[in-house]
């Protein structure tokens, strides 16, 4: 047992660090520094740089375009991208539907979709939740009825992140109403430009348009776009949920977040001293750091411990629970740290008067981010659902 990097790993670390320094899009860096909201093009800018280098999907098998890195190399890569404050790529194609397709898809599906996920040509969204099916996902009611070589899909999905930009969506639909809930579900890939699809924005607390309602009205979907067998969609969904959870610990990004809060707390004054000298604030920050270390080493144990390579198991629910709690605490501390300047709301009028700036740049997104990040303990299976998973799958209750 050791934590040292080998000379090869240290060389790799340097390679990654140098690559980011030389290739991270300057315009994107500028927007991040200003605290601007990021557009689709911003996400794609960094995606394309990584794609060109062959580093866009480190976790994928080499045959489908992965890097063949060891778990340690992947750890180094995520550490370095977080250290350099690179944006996180959209997960829907790379981390979610991609692995489902290369695991369960037909050769035709793999050939059609995987290269375009890697290149960023297709932007994906996830059609899971419905107004009546949130934590109880298996109660979903969107139906797909066979009609010749197609399905006719009807229903309503909700909380569909970035559907407004999406070219494709992966959907859970009911194909057998008589079967037990989980056994009547299929996994469909649907072209978002299909006639009958309507996307309506849902505006969340920070004012963002991230999520949407998606209405499907007599949408015709070729059966060849079903992944895995009919009524076996729940298998794909469970597989994907486990995948979704592993990245969700977000350790490297939270480490970077801690450094940002520290920097703010060294700048902001509390009396005649920096806020960081305030014993109460300091203690909260220290507790957060300690909890993050515990999360980091729990993740490292699963990456490089005896069960490494076995794939994410139900214990990854622990990483989701603790990772999301930490992400939220970080945004809460940031908002606390910026003081008065948490209040100004820039959406809709922006900030164009450089001579009389409204508060420091780092305060601009503090409140919206705090509000927005409440989602982390709700999405991907709420933290209560994660506890149910651990109780059942790990504790055997």
């Amino acid at each position, binding site marked *: 047992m050791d934590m040292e990097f080998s000379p090869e790993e240290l060389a790799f670390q340097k390679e990654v660090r140098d690559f980011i320094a030389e290739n991270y899009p300057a315009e994107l860096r500028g927007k991040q520094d200003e605290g601007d909201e990021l557009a689709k093009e911003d996400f794609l800018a960094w995606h394309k740089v990584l794609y060109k280098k062959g580093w866009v999907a480190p976790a994928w098998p080499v045959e489908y375009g992965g890097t063949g890195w060891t778990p340690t190399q992947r*750890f180094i890569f995520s550490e370095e991208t977080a250290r350099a404050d690179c944006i996180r790529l959209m997960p829907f194609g790379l981390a979610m539907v991609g692995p489902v397709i290369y695991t369960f898809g037909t050769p035709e599906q793999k050939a059609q979709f995987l290269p375009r996920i890697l290149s960023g040509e297709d932007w994906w969204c996830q059609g899971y939740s419905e107004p009546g099916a949130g934590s109880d996902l298996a109660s979903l009611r969107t139906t797909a009825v066979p009609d010749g070589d197609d399905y006719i899909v009807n229903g309503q999905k909700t909380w569909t992140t970035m559907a407004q930009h999406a070219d494709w969506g992966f959907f859970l639909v009911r194909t057998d109403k008589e079967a037990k809930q989980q056994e009547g579900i299929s996994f469909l890939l649907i072209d978002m430009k299909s006639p009958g699809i309507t996307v309506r924005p849902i505006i969340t607390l920070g004012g963002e348009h991230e999520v949407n309602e998606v209405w499907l009205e007599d949408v015709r979907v070729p059966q060849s776009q079903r992944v895995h067998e009919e009524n076996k969609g729940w298998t794909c969904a469970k597989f994907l949920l486990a995948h979704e959870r592993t990245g969700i610990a977000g350790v490297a990004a939270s480490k970077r977040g801690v450094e940002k809060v520290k920097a703010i707390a060294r700048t902001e004054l509390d009396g005649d001293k920096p806020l960081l000298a305030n014993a109460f604030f*300091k203690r909260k920050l220290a507790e957060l750091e*300690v909890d993050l*270390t*515990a999360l980091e080493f729990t993740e*490292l144990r699963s990456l*490089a411990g005896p069960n490494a390579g076995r794939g994410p198991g139900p214990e990854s629910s622990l990483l989701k629970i603790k990772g999301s709690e930490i992400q939220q605490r970080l945004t809460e501390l940031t908002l606390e740290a910026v003081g008065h300047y948490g209040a100004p709301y820039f959406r809709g009028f922006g900030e164009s008067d450089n001579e009389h700036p409204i508060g420091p740049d780092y305060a601009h997104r503090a409140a919206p981010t705090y509000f927005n990040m409440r989602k982390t303990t709700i999405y991907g299976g709420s933290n209560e659902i994660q506890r149910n998973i651990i109780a059942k799958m790990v*504790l*055997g*209750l």
Partner: protein
Amino acid sequence: MDFTYTETQDMIRDTLSRFLADTYDFETRQKFIDSDSGRDPAIWTALAQELGMLGAPFAEEHGGLGGGALENAIIMEELGKVLGIEPYLPTVVIAGGALKAVGGAQADAMIPEIIAGNAIIAFAYAEPQGRYDLANLKTNAKKDGAGYLLNGHKSVVYTAPWATHLLVTARTGGAQRDADGVSLFLIDAKLPGIVRRDYPTVDGSRASEIYFENVAIPGDALLGGEGAGLPLIEQVVDEATVAVCAEATGVMQKLHEGTLEYTQQRKQFGVPIAKFQVLQHRMVDMFMEVEQARSMTIMGTLKLGQPANERMAAVSACKAKVARGANFVGQNAIQTHGGIGITQELAIGHYFKRATMIEGQFGSADHHMERYERITLAD
């Protein structure tokens, strides 16, 4: 980077856990901790001579297995699982650690005695006024010819009633709380002028108040440089702190498992209480604390060899997290058991008592958070 154990480490764990399963069941333990001496010396002898366990962290030239802190952690965790009261921590981890660090003739003489099971060493460091400050010492050792004259009062010295030797911190110079002037001595426990008041501890061990009344100690009892002992003491206490965290993970695991088992047997409202979601989620929260304690113990253990500041920050993070976790898991184990949990009858309450004492051992969560902040969050 690698988080797996070696074959030898797996073997140490397997051998020890099999031995303890045979010798350390709860009823047997209760019998010997209630006996006059409070222990069964045959177990210590067997650990040394049959299992070779006491040599785990020592170099092969001293007759050890060539291991280190990881081996200590494995052994402490297994002892934790059976509520072991064997003096492994003060003898092997602490005194052994100090001897390894100073080396030379003192190490050559004593380490084989430890490995053979002949030496039991208690660590006399705490004082009534000192709380967790290792340098806050009234006990003093004054130069006296070639040796020293030792005077002072040491608090709650675990395992002292069984000890052949005492590892003592004392002031050879400086003021009561100075970093300079602290020295470390390894002395015979039976020297004239050593007065002991022995008592049982709430977690099943034995301890003593120790009064040194003009105890004449030889010059070669000094470990390391005179007056320059604090860094060594801090290092050894950090090693011990992580070892106690390893013990805690064993204790916490048992508290959690015991609770899982009990809730599946105990019926109320016509069903096993494990069916209630409120208890399931509580037990998941306990599980997460156990796992995080394990992760932090590994982190702390792996960082013991780092430069002092990094080591201290890591150990403090580890102890703070483990102390809080031990508190949470212990209290919720009792709560989930209900009334039966607060009786002496079940093992669960005894695990709770040990978990509670571990919380404060070598510094509470607050103490360690403060040390962590001093190092990592300077404004």
